[in-house]
Every structure is written in C-alpha cells, then in structure tokens.
C-alpha cells in the first residue's frame, strides 16, 4: 500500500442484528454480525437452514432492513447502493418474466433506468454472449432448461455492470451435473467482470470450489461461527480438475469441521455434503 488510493470495501456489515416479529413472539434471525467483503472477492455464506444466511444477503441488498447495526455497500448505505444500482442480484428461482423473451428479460433493468434502445440492444448482445446463450435471445423462458433460465438471471443481474453480485442459492434447484457446470461458468464470468460476489449456499463443495473465503454460520440465533479462507489459488484460475485435488478435500474438511464448531463429525445436519 505505497499509493494513497483509498480502497472502499464492497460490503461492510457492522454489528448487525435482525429480529423478526412473529405471532409466537420475537425471532432473532441474526445476532452480532460483522463481515467485510473486499472488491472482487468471492465470499460464500454457508450454514444449516435457519442460520440467517439468506436474511444477511437480503440486508446487503436492502430488501430488508437490520434491527440494529449498519450495512454499507461501496461506502454508502445499503439503501443508497440499491437506489444507485450498485449491485446485481440472482435468486434460487430464476424469476424471469414468462411473457418476455430472453433478450427482453435481460433488458429489463436497463429499460427501467432509461437506457437508450441502441445502448440496451448492444449491452444485451454482450450479456447473451457472456453467459453463452447466443442463439436463444428470441426464446421464451418456458422453452429453456433450468440451467439456461439461471444463466439468463445471471446475465440480467450483470446488466448494469455492477461491481457486486448477490446470489441466493442460484444453483439450488439444478441437477448436480448442470450445477457443477454452472459453477465453473460463474467463476469465468466473475473473473471477466471483476465483480465481488456474495454467494449463499448450503453445499460445502460448492462453497469451497467458488470462494476466496467461506463464512460459516450457525443457527438460533444466526451468528458467524467461523471464516475459512480457501487456500486454493485465485478463483479465476480454478477449473473442474480442482474437484479431484487433495487440497480441495482438505478445504471441504476444514469447512465441515467449522460447521461443527471444530469437532470432526460424520455429518452436518441440514447441510448437503455432496
């Protein structure tokens, strides 16, 4: 750090609590969360159901507001970041508009923010090429497989060239083979765009394969139990052969043990081991 460039974190979560008011009383979804995601970094949130990983992602996206504490995205409030379109988001459901073609779905965020039609057309063509759907621009979502729909959703999330991509179990509904293929595609895309990624999953191998750091969460109340750095080289250089590498299995073991509070255990409840 010899230069005097001030680098802003992509995401800064400070002392965040989230309490939901339910009929049966208060439910503490998140308690005392501190997390920093650096620009260009790939961070996965993993943990059993009910650990608040999706809630944390929704707070970063300003789809929910924290009960206390603060969430900043690129140095501004999460709310301002949402208004300024600083992030793109993809959910487990692709959530495409069925009455719009692939191209028109990808164009949606551009249209809503008044891009000219020429700009939109060029950007959509770029994005379609980026996610490898070249001949499918005129197709409709009901003509696509689940994996292809999810690619459209990713292209749509990248439409405004965000430097932060938020993903909530985007491959959770895909079959295993498609899922592994999409993971490698996602690494390529995130390397090409240079965007930071916050990725919610409950698959340990998925988190290990994709991430620079894996944030392990535990439930009731949702807390960060451990942050495990992945000693697997840069995410941009990873390819499918990594899945058979000894280092990969060591990292899987490290994450699994973190999920069990350090003690080696045969299985983590509510977490996929595949």
């Amino acid at each position: 750090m010899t230069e005097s460039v001030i680098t802003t974190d992509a995401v800064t979560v400070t002392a965040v609590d989230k309490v939901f008011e339910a009929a049966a009383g208060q439910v503490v979804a998140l308690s005392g969360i501190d997390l920093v995601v650096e620009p260009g970094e790939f961070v996965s949130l993993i943990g059993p159901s009910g650990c608040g990983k999706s809630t944390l992602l929704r707070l970063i996206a300003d789809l929910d507001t924290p009960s206390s504490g603060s969430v900043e995205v690129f140095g501004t409030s999460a709310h301002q970041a949402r208004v300024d379109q600083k992030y793109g988001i993809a959910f487990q459901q692709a959530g495409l508009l069925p009455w719009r073609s692939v191209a028109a779905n990808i164009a949606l965020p551009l249209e809503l923010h008044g891009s000219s039609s020429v700009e939109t057309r060029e950007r959509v063509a770029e994005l379609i090429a980026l996610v490898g759907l070249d001949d499918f621009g005129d197709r409709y979502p009901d003509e696509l497989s689940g994996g292809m729909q999810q690619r459209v959703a990713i292209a749509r999330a990248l439409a405004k060239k965000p430097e932060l991509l938020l993903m909530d179990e985007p491959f959770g509904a895909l079959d295993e083979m498609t899922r592994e293929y999409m993971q490698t595609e996602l690494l390529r895309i995130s390397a090409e765009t240079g965007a930071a990624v916050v990725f919610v999953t409950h698959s340990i191998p998925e988190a290990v394969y994709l991430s620079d750091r894996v944030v392990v969460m535990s439930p009731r109340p949702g807390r960060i139990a451990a942050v495990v750095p992945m000693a697997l080289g840069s995410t941009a250089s990873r390819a499918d052969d990594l899945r058979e590498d000894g280092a990969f299995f060591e990292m899987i073991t490290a994450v699994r043990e973190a999920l069990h509070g350090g003690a080696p255990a045969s299985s983590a409840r509510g977490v996929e081991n595949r």
Partner: protein
Amino acid sequence: MTGAATIAPPRGRPPGAAWGSGGTARAVAPIVLGVSVVAVWQLIAGSGLVEAYLLPSPAAIGAEIVEFWPSMVSAGAITGLNALVGLVAGTLIGIISALVASTRRSLDGMLAPIVAALAVIPIVALAPVLNTMFGADSQTGRQLIAALAAFVPVFLNTARGLRQTQPVHRDLMRSYAASNAQIMRTITLRTAAPFTFTGIRLASSLAVISALVAEYFGGPRGGLGGLISTSAASSAYPRAWAYVVAAIILGLAFSLVASGLERLVSRRR
C-alpha cells in the same frame, strides 16, 4: 353465475392449440355430432310423433330463417350492440374497481359483499325499473343490465389476478429501485391480464344473454329477445326458434372472440 365466476385461465398453450391433425379432429367432432342431432330431430319432427307447435322441424326453422333473414340481421345487430356496449362498460368498471380494491384491504372488504349482492340481482326485477327510468324507447336500461352482468366476473377475476404477483418478482423490482408505476406496469398488470381476460370470456356470454332477456320486460321492440317473445306469443313457433338460432350464433360469436383474446394473453405466463 357467481359459482363459475372465477376460473383460473388456461396455463400456457393447450396441446391441441396448433392447427395440426389434432386440431382438425377437434373441429370435425362437434360438427359431426351437431349434424347427427339435427338429422334425428328432423326425423322425429317429420314422423308426426310430436306436435309441430311443441317441436318444429329443423326444415321449418330453416325456412323461417331464410324468409326473415333481414329482420334477423337487424335484430341481431340491436341485441349485439346492447351486449357489446354493456360488455365494454362492465369490463372497464370491473377492471377499475378491482384496481381500487387492490390498493387497500379495507376497500376490498367493502366492495366484495356489494359485488356479491349485485351478482344475484334478478333481471326480472331490474329491467322494468330501468325501463321506467330511461323511457320506453331507450336501449340504455338493457345496456346497463348487460354491463352489470359483465362487471361481476371481470371484477372478481381481475381482483384475483392482481394478487398473483410472485414474491421473487417483487424482490427483483425492489432491487431495481423501480417506482410504483413501473412495478404496476411491468409486473402487476401483466400478471393479472390472463385472469382479466378469463373474466371477459365469462362476461361475454353473460352480456349477450342479459341483453336478450332484458328485452322481455318492455322497451323498444326489434331485438332478438323481443322478437322471440312476440313470435312465441303469436304461436309462430318455427319463427321463434329461428330467432333463437340467431341468438345462439350471436352468443357464440361473442364467446369465440373473447376466447381468442384470452388465449392470446395467456400464451406466456
């Protein structure tokens, strides 16, 4: 009419929608059945087993259709226009009311019982009152009755459609910081549209039958309903049946156009 008033619109394209061999078979089957029924009817009516005034033969009805063709066309136009004006007005009021009801739960609670009440007002009670209100030479009363009949299914289906927005679409629009108007235009209205058009399909037949029945209770003559009752009253049964055929054709035309629109809108959702 309330029982069948909310029906989920067809999902996607039905398998036989393409004009392939399946489509031909589906078109031919009802024609074959219709021709057979008319043939059997002709045989029974011609055999003298049933008195001609009870069941006029298809041939006699056909002859009346040819003889009174110009009158049938003009009668169909009068009743058809009343039904169309009512359908359009009822549809617009139905959609607007549903939009209003969707803004506040309390408004929905206020409107729902009123609509349930409107749905069961008998035409026999309403028609004479409206005829008195608008004068004996006015079609307005009939158009209002058709509008009322059309309003109910359009309102109920649209109100339901406006509640079908998917949570993932809502989250997505929020992540885009979209304005309420943008959310309404891109997601809410488009999601509701197939439901609205299902309502319009149901309303189209109701508008025709209501406009026609309303003619039984006074007002200017010349419509299909009026001529059916006049013909029957003067024991011209084949002619009464000829006007019934015209009424059937009018109703089918309305419902075919409405079904076509519905299919167009429901194609992708």
